[in-house]
Every structure is written in structure tokens, then in C-alpha cells.
């Protein structure tokens, strides 16, 4: 297909999740983007003349050929890999297939189709919540250290593949955005489900600092990342930090303080009964700090968040109140 070479054709996986939709909305309004190629197993709600949707299951064995042909036909030059088990999936096998193997397939397709720019979504959780963390984790901080849980292991694996892809394709520009917990009317993640639940568990005697990014900022960051030229790893974080207990209070919840010895078994029981959205192996994130430093994004990408963590929490609370959801 003939495409104006100055305008980009952006493909994205994970198009039906909140980030995919938010990003597509912004790309649709962006002149520099000629067409959006959405790849997902679910059809995104968002529709636009620029948007073409392909239903592809990335875990399927033939997905690489399918995607590769599709990329070539559409003339894709920029690829955003937003596939992400942002809620902690109980189906570990599927999550692994999707994040690790799916990434493998799609990167192979990218190299076959000669995609020149790849942007991948990661998370600041891959630094791990550890007692020895500095107050601000920079991009140079080691990831995937001992003690990391299985949920982050797949993300670490995904990043590893990205780095390998970059080594093998020096001409391609690869960018990894590690974003922190996002909050907003559409965002979904385990932390917001804890914060806005009626009861929020907290470890007795532990009250780590946390950071949140407003989803408007998050979409903007990805938009800048996808349409920009920079490469490298960047933490995408919101403004300011607050303590977990403050966050619960601001979210309108009630904290339930439990000693660690109780909290762990209780959550794993609830998790396995599917009554609760956070597995006990993830509880470290409520105990030790894992706040990342957004300085590099500010300096290199010129991304400065517009909202602070309080505004993000207030926004969610307002939206939930309007919808008549719990937590109030």
C-alpha cells in the first residue's frame, strides 16, 4: 500500500486494553500517524477510519507468519507492544505464553517485516519491592533479582527479548517504557483494585511510599514514545509519592492492618478461592518501597507528568462515585 513516507503506520498489540484504547484515541487525532493497525484477540471498542483491526492470537504457533504478512501488507513501521497482564492473571501458563512467547513471535515478525521502531510496555514492578531499594530506582537499577515473583519474571523475560532484538537489529529503535501503577477512569490493575476495595490490607508496621500515574499522563507518555524518536529504557511515573496508608485514606477505603503472619495465608486463601485479586507473592509491594525515578524521561523524552498522585486518586474516586461503585 502506498503511504506517505513522512507519516507513520503504527501497529499495536493489546489494543483492547485501556492503554491500547487510550493510545489509539490519541493516535487517531495525530496527523503524523497515517494508520493504526490494532492487533488483539478482543475487538477494541474504539473505532475510527484510520483504524484497522486484526484478530490474532499471539500464542498460536502460526501467529508469527500471520503478523509478519500483515505488517508487510500494511507497511507498518512502528510497533507498540502493549500486551500486558495488567491484572494478575490466575492462569500463569496463559500469561507466560502471552508475555514471553507472544513477544518472541511478534518480535520475529517485526524483524521479518523490517519494522524500524518498537516500543514495549514494561512496569516499574520489575525492580521488585525490596527492603534495600533506594528511595528512587533509576533505569540502571538491576531487574529480575532474586526474590522477584513469577508475575514479574515474564516481564523481565520480555525486556530481555527486547534487548536482544535491539542487538540483532542495530538500525531499529527500541524503547521500553516502565510505567508505574496507573489510575484513572479506565485503568485496571491490582493495586487500584486493592485501594478502592472496601477493605484494604496493610502490613502491620509497614507503610511504604508509593507512586501513581494518572492515566492521561500515561497515554501521553506512550503517545510521545511511539511518535518520537528516542530509544532506551524509561521510567514513566507520576508526580510525587505518598504513603500507602495515605493512599488508602485518599481513595476512601478503610485499611485493615494485619500482621504479616496472618496477611499472607489469608490472601492466598482468598486468592485461590477467587475472592481476592492479589496473590500473596505480590504482597511485598505493600511492604517495601519500589518507587522509580522519572528524571530520565523528563530529560530525554521531555515527559513531565501533569497530575500528581493525589489528583490521580481523587479522579478515580470521583469516577467511581459517579458510577455508583463501591468504596464510598
Amino acid at each position, binding site marked *: 500500500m502506498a503511504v506517505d513516507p513522512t507519516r507513520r503506520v503504527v501497529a499495536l498489540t493489546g489494543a483492547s486494553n485501556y492503554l491500547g484504547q487510550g493510545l489509539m484515541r490519541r493516535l487517531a487525532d495525530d496527523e503524523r500517524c497515517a494508520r493504526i493497525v490494532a492487533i488483539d484477540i478482543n475487538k477494541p471498542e474504539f473505532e475510527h477510519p484510520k483504524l484497522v483491526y486484526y484478530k490474532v492470537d499471539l500464542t498460536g504457533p502460526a501467529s508469527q507468519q500471520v503478523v509478519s504478512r500483515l505488517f508487510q501488507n500494511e507497511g507498518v513501521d512502528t510497533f507498540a507492544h502493549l500486551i500486558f497482564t495488567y491484572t494478575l492473571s490466575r492462569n500463569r501458563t496463559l500469561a507466560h505464553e502471552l508475555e514471553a512467547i507472544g513477544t518472541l513471535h511478534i518480535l520475529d515478525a517485526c524483524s521479518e517485516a523490517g519494522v524500524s521502531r518498537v516500543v514495549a510496555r514494561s512496569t516499574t514492578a520489575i525492580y521488585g519491592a525490596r527492603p534495600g531499594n*533506594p528511595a*528512587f530506582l533509576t533505569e540502571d537499577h538491576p531487574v529480575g*533479582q532474586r526474590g522477584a515473583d513469577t508475575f514479574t519474571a515474564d516481564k*523481565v523475560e520480555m525486556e530481555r527479548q527486547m*534487548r536482544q532484538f535491539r542487538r540483532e537489529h542495530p538500525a531499529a529503535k527500541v524503547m521500553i517504557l516502565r510505567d508505574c501503577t496507573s489510575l484513572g477512569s479506565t485503568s485496571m490493575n491490582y493495586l487500584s483494585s486493592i485501594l478502592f476495595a472496601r477493605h484494604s490490607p496493610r502490613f502491620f*508496621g509497614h507503610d511504604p*511510599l508509593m507512586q501513581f500515574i494518572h492515566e492521561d499522563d500515561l497515554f501521553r507518555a506512550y503517545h510521545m514514545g511511539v511518535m518520537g524518536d528516542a530509544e*532506551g529504557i524509561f521510567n514513566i511515573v507520576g508526580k510525587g509519592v505518598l504513603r500507602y496508608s495515605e493512599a488508602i485514606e485518599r481513595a476512601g477505603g478503610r485499611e485493615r492492618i494485619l500482621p504479616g503472619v496472618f496477611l499472607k495465608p489469608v490472601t492466598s486463601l482468598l486468592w485461590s478461592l477467587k475472592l481476592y485479586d492479589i496473590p500473596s507473592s505480590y504482597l511485598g509491594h505493600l511492604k517495601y518501597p519500589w518507587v522509580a525515578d522519572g528524571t530520565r524521561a523528563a530529560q*530525554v523524552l521531555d515527559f513531565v507528568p501533569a497530575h500528581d498522585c493525589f489528583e490521580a486518586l481523587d479522579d478515580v474516586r470521583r469516577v467511581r462515585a459517579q458510577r455508583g461503585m463501591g468504596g464510598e
Partner: protein
Amino acid sequence: MAKSVLGNDPFLSGPAEKKPATGKSGKTKGAAKPKKASTPKAKPVTVEKPKPKTKPAKKTTAKASKVSKTVKAPSKSKAVSKAKPKTAAGPKAKPKASPKTSRKKTPKKTAPRQSGTGKSARVQPASVAQPESNVQPAEGAAEWASARSKRSLAIGGGDPKLIRRLRPDGFTVGQEYGYDPELSQRAESLLSFFYRFYWRVSVKGIENLPKTGRAVLVGNHAGILPFDSLMVSHAVRREAKRDIWPLMEDYYSYFPVLGPLLSRLGLVRACQENAQRLLAEDQQVLVFPEGIKGIVKPYRNRYRLERFGRGGFVKLCLVSDAPVIPVAIVGSEEVHPIMANLGGLAKTLGLPFFPLTPLFPLLGPLGLAPLPSKWTVIFGEPMYINQFGPEAAGDRTAVNRLSNQVKGQIQKMIDMEIGQRSSRWR
């Protein structure tokens, strides 16, 4: 910094041209960011005549006269003696001259300037207020700022504006490390009680602290709980009207209850990243290089400094270009007379140490109550070890030598003060 376990490819460190220094400060490079006001090499501040106190209640640090009865009655402004500006510390040659010779120079001028000179409860002119008070702070910040000023009127504390600056993003320095201005404000009266009546802290040489700019305060460590951190930071906030961030052992920072509490009071977990970041914002940090070895020092060895770690604080100064201010804390090493450290028991309990004092395991937590010794905190003259430049940080011999120099200086200040005090209790 740390290498990735996943391999060490250049990708990790991002675009080389623009790579930010890791220690560099925060996210907002707002216009209102304070310029580094004075170079770290500035001369030590000269003493200025104290202005008449407006608040009679303000405690003036007892003059060093050994007999001083002054302790009991902080309200009588004994301070007056201050009329004689010390000549000694005034124009002091900048020890910049030649690195080789000057190195030994600073130690020469030892700290405890005895009589009278140590007076220090200066009232700071408003000029210390950081320039960004005019920045429009976020509303939350404005809230606590006003709450704080209301409170401080009630409590009789200092003018909040003098002490803390609001950053352009509406958060204060330190909040990103867990500092809680509100709680600290509430705790101030308690700290004040300990400062004035319990340990009757005298301060000497406060004028050696820079009025602006970064500095690394290095002190001797003692006490099962970090009372010395709290007292020194209280002294600096109170007397010098500046923020200071004591660094605490890892162990405290993730101890349940205690860790969050201390960090809300302004203690920051000790690690190079945190310290460099604070110094890059022209803050003062307080470090105790003895670490846990200092804490579990048996009572009979009190005031004999332990090994100064591996010189991390020297590297910090070199890399961040900050001078060292030696601090001798006399009195703190008597608050918990440690008879032994039960290492085996500690290991079983998963603690880094398990001290045995006459009271501690015996009375349970109550046994951790500190004894009311009389404290003197002496700030020595700045040691400009940063003149050797960041490249010296890689030279282990140099780091070690500098570390020992600082240690020697602190030891000297301690010894001098101990020689002069009549009793450890008053």
C-alpha cells in the same frame, strides 16, 4: 551503578548523550529550582552577633562552662555572653591552597572552642528563607504549610518558612523519602523536651555549618535507637534553621513500625543513591560511618570510634563535591550502657544485634528507655576533602586515608570535650 544481571549492554543505560546523572535530583526541573547558592568550598560561616532574642523561651545552648547550671533553666537567656564574636573562626584561610599541604590543615583547628564561643542560638534573618516561597505550591502543600505555621505559633517553634522550602511541584524536599512534615511538627515538642530538659543538649560550633549548600555531617554513633540522629537533626533545625537528613541503617528502615516512624521524622535510608540525590539538591546529610558496630559498642569502649565502614561517606563527599563537617556527640554513648551483644540470640531472632544492658532485656521494651546523660554536640570546622575530586573516589588508599583523617578529627573533638566535662550526668 549496578549492573544488570541480564548483561551489561549499553542499551541499559539509555542514550548516552543525555544520560542523567543518577544522583540528580527530581523530576521537575522547574524554573524555581534553587541555584546552588554557594559553592561547597565557601569559607566556614563567620559568626555573627546574635540578634536580640525575640523569644525568651528559646533555649540558648549552654555555654561550655563545665559547671553550667544553666541547663535547668533554658529561659534565662544566658546567651548574652555572646557579645564577643569569636575571632578565631572568622576569616579562616581557605584550605584550598594546595591539596597536599592543606589536607592536614583542617584537623589542626580543632573544634571544641571552649568558653563562650560555642554560643550559637542565632536568630536567622529571613534571608534564609529559600527563594521559592513565592512559587505557587500545590494546594495540599499550602495546606500543611499553613497548618504548620499555625501550630508552630502555638508551640513556639521556629518560623516554618525559614526551615523548609517548597519545591515547584508542591512537595517538600524530603517528602519523597518519606518525611512527614505534619508528624514532625507534632513530634517537635517531644523532641524539644528531650533536647532541652532530658539530655540538656549544648551545641557548640553551629556556625561551622554552611548556611546554604551541601554538606556531609559525620558523627559518632551510639544508642540502640537512633536518638543521636534525632537530637542532632533537631539541633540543626533549631539552631541553624536548616534541614538535615540523617541517614539510618538499613536495619531500622525496614523494621516494622520503627522504620516508617523514623522515616516520617526525616531519617533516610542510608545508601549512596539516596545520599547523592539529597546532596544534589544542596541538602545536608548526617552519616554515622560506624554503623551497627557503633551501636553495639560495649560501654567500656564508649567514645572510642570504631572502624569507619569502608569509607562510603568519603566516596559520597568526593562524588557529590561536599565538605565534611565532623560532629562529636558527647553524652549519647551513655544512654544505653551496653554490656554485651548476644550475637547468637540476635541471629536466631533475625535481628542484626541483641544488646544486653543493665535494663534491656530485663524490663522488656521499657529497658530501652535512654538514661538522662548530659549531651554536648560539637560541630567542627568543615574539612574540604572534596577538593580531591570525584576521581579520588576510586582510589582505595586515598579514601581510606581521608576516612581516617575524619575519624581522627572526630576522636580528637570527643576527647577534648570529655576531658572538660565534670560529670556525665550534668
